[in-house]
């Protein structure tokens, strides 16, 4: 349970060792490098140009991988998405640096091939369209653009609709009486169009065409110098050749797939160099030396110090950060609490001087989650799935591993509450036993069944809520005491304990309340009096002190009264825990609905088949919906009700200079 103590680090070394030192730091990933201001001696080097080249090359490698993924997809086992990055030794990495240029060429080649294939592929439909256009003209045995003879002109074109030769002549005659020497040949006729080859004497050709135009005649868009059948053969040959070229290019892409690993490495290589050069840009450099400043977790200091001093001449200094410095935050927790670090981080990391709430939160997180899902069957599925992944994928990334562990613990808690409340896939045990085996076997609740006694669970939820809130207040007390503000701790925490605690106890002395909640006891009036006095004192304390910042007594009183008004927020906070009951019931009742639907055909083979199908689909759905619900609402109870009492956050995450790669990670030398 802690925020890792951070130290400020200053490293001064010779420039000739710069590359080696930075590479070592990058592999260790323990130092966050800080940007510092320039002065007369030390200046920054401008690395933006180099970085943009690296970025470009990384993007190129990425593109090449994308091309390979499209043309020659990798066969991946089902669980591979859970697997982390591959491990790589330093030797493998050094060996790759020799192949780097060659791999870059492969990347360029892949990019070029991809572009060419795309162009060629778009060419083919264009030619096919041309072939399509030629089809009605195939019968024509002279070139489409016929030069004519000494005395005649010839042209081709189409009339809309189906025409007979006679019909055309008659129509033509009626439109242009003077035209006499025209010869029309129908090349092809279909319902859409009639294709014509028209020959006329030079003097009448124009007139004939005009007359035909009035009938809707139009010349085709593409007219070739060749005989249509020849042209078609030519086009088809070209398509075939193009296809062969595409096939060759695709084959080449396939043959380049063996470089996939190298391309991945190339991407990582440039991503790392880009990161490294980003750091170089932040360094203070003189002619022969450089200075690096940053933060390091105190626990990493000895290892790094011995390693650096063993290999290089360096001056290393570690300072305690100044109190007002913006120190980055890293969390360190035990095995049970570490998995929920991500939840804390998704709210906000602890701010300056704040306590890490993770370990306290973790306990409640698991308990609340379990109560909301509260089904032993679902819990066991979660446990099985998470342990399977954790055992099967050793190489899993740490973030994913933590989530898996979190859901594993949540699953254990879910199983526990399921046993307490008698939920195993809803009422599946009882339903199956009575429908198929005619026995009255049921999965008995160890404690009680919420469906039968909802008030009891509601009271328990409120009780859990009060404990949760009071622990939150306790955290505030601890936090204030740690900062030496004992008085504030009394004013802001103890008085609230008195007011809220007293009020709750006082309520329990009222017959009406205990009856409503179904409690078997009512506290005696004496206890009530004491509780009322305690609550009253708490309220007075709050009125007197919550406006203590104001000097004006009237203003202070008003602020104090407003402070007491805050008790309503406690009321709504406590009521908010009723969602434990509601979501717990929702899981159980929806499961029951599905079980009931499954038994609609009764016993027997048909009934068993229907039951199995409904059971599988229904419970998968229910598990999905309620898992989401439990996750979201557990987070809400933590973020709003619990953190609202003491936690502010606002810390900046520790982001050390390291190898932030996508495909490979360095194997740690032992």
């Amino acid at each position: 349970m802690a925020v890792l103590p951070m130290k400020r680090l200053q490293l001064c070394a010779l420039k000739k060792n710069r590359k080696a030192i930075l590479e070592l730091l990058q592999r260790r990933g323990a130092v966050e490098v800080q940007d510092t201001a320039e002065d007369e001696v030390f200046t920054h080097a401008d690395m933006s140009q180099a970085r943009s080249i690296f970025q470009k090359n990384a993007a190129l490698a990425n593109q090449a991988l994308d091309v390979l993924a499209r043309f020659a997809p990798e066969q991946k086992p089902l669980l591979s998405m859970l697997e982390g990055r591959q491990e790589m030794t330093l030797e493998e990495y050094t060996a790759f640096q020799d192949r780097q240029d060659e791999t870059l060429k492969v990347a360029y080649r892949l990019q070029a091939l991809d572009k060419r294939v795309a162009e060629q592929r778009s060419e083919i439909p264009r030619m096919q369209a041309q072939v399509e256009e030629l089809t009605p003209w195939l019968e024509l045995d002279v070139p489409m653009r016929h030069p004519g003879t000494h005395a005649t002109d010839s042209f081709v074109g189409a009339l809309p609709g189906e025409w007979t030769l006679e019909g055309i002549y008659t129509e033509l005659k009626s439109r242009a009486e003077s035209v006499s020497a025209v010869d029309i040949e129908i090349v092809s006729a279909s319902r859409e169009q009639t294709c014509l080859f028209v020959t006329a004497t030079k003097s009448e050709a124009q007139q004939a065409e005009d007359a035909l135009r009035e009938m809707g005649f139009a010349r085709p868009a593409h007219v070739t110098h060749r005989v249509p059948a020849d042209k078609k053969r030519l086009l088809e040959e070209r398509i075939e050749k193009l296809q062969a070229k595409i096939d060759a290019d695709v084959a080449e892409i396939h043959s380049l797939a063996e470089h996939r690993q190298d391309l991945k490495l190339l991407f990582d290589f440039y991503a790392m160099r880009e990161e490294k050069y980003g750091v170089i840009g932040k360094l203070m450099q003189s002619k022969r030396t450089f200075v690096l400043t940053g933060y390091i977790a105190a626990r990493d200091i000895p290892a790094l110090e011995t390693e650096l001093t063993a290999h290089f001449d360096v001056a290393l200094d570690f300072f305690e950060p100044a109190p007002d410095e913006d120190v980055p935050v890293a969390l360190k927790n035990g095995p049970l609490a570490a998995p929920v670090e991500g939840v804390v981080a998704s709210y906000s990391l602890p701010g300056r001087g704040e306590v890490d709430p993770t370990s306290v939160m973790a306990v409640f997180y698991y308990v609340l989650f379990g109560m909301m899902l509260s089904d032993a069957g679902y819990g066991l599925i979660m446990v099985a799935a998470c342990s399977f992944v954790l055992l099967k994928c050793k190489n899993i990334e740490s973030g994913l591993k933590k989530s898996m562990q979190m859901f594993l613990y949540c699953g254990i808690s879910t199983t526990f509450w399921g046993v307490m409340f008698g939920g195993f896939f809803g009422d599946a045990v009882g339903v199956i036993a009575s429908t198929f085996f005619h026995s009255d076997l049921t999965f008995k609740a160890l404690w009680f069944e919420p469906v039968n006694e909802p008030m009891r669970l509601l009271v328990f939820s409120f009780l859990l809520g009060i404990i949760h809130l009071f622990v939150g207040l306790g955290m505030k007390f601890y936090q204030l005491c740690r900062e030496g503000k004992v008085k504030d701790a009394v004013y802001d925490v103890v008085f609230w304990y008195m007011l809220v605690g007293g009020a709750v106890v006082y309520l329990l002395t009222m017959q009406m309340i205990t009856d409503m909640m179904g409690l078997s006891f009512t506290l005696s009036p004496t206890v009530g009096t004491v509780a009322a006095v305690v609550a009253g004192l708490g309220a007075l304390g709050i009125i007197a002190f919550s406006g203590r910042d104001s000097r004006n007594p009237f203003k202070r009183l008003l602020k104090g009264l407003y402070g007491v008004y805050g008790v309503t927020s406690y009321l709504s906070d406590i009521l908010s825990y009723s969602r434990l009951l509601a979501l717990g019931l929702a899981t159980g009742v929806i499961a029951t609905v599905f079980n009931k639907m499954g038994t609609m055909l009764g016993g027997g083979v048909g009934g068993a088949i229907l039951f199995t199908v409904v059971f599988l689909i229904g419970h998968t759905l229910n598990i999905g919906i309620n898992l989401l619900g439990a996750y979201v609402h557990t987070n809400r109870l933590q973020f709003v009700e619990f953190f609202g009492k003491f936690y502010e956050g606002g810390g900046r995450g520790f982001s050390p200079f390291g190898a932030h790669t996508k495909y490979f990670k360095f194997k740690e030398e032992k």
Partner: protein
Amino acid sequence: MSSLGIAFALLGAALAALLAGIGSAIGVGMAGEAAAGAITEEPGRFGKVLILQLLPGTQGIYGLLIAFITLTQIGIMGGSAEMSLAKGLLYFCACLPMGFVGLWSAIRQARASVASIGMFCKRPETFGKAIILPAMVETYAILALLISILSIFGIGGLNI
């Protein structure tokens, strides 16, 4: 006259499923449109955006739940369907919170979801917060669910 009791009870159950279901259908639809846009830009977001889309879907399920326990309590799913008019009206009233709150909260939650999807697209690291904002709205659906459940179970024990 006594036959009207069961009719009102069933009307209540139907309203709970109807209104909450309509709300969730509208809500999930709205969020789905936003989600589709987000996925167009970056297909890798699918898993997380889907979660945000599903958030307004719970009201429909709560409505179903209320409808179902009402059906079992009033004997429609087997058993006798004898009921006084007063009792039938009580069941009807008990179902109303879930129906109405379900309808409005699902739509409002969907609007928060849509905004959260936008936020998640611009700043993917805020996913945790993006989930919480729509979930705040759901609180009221849960409270309505609670009151409906408690009422329905309570009415079963009444002797009128």
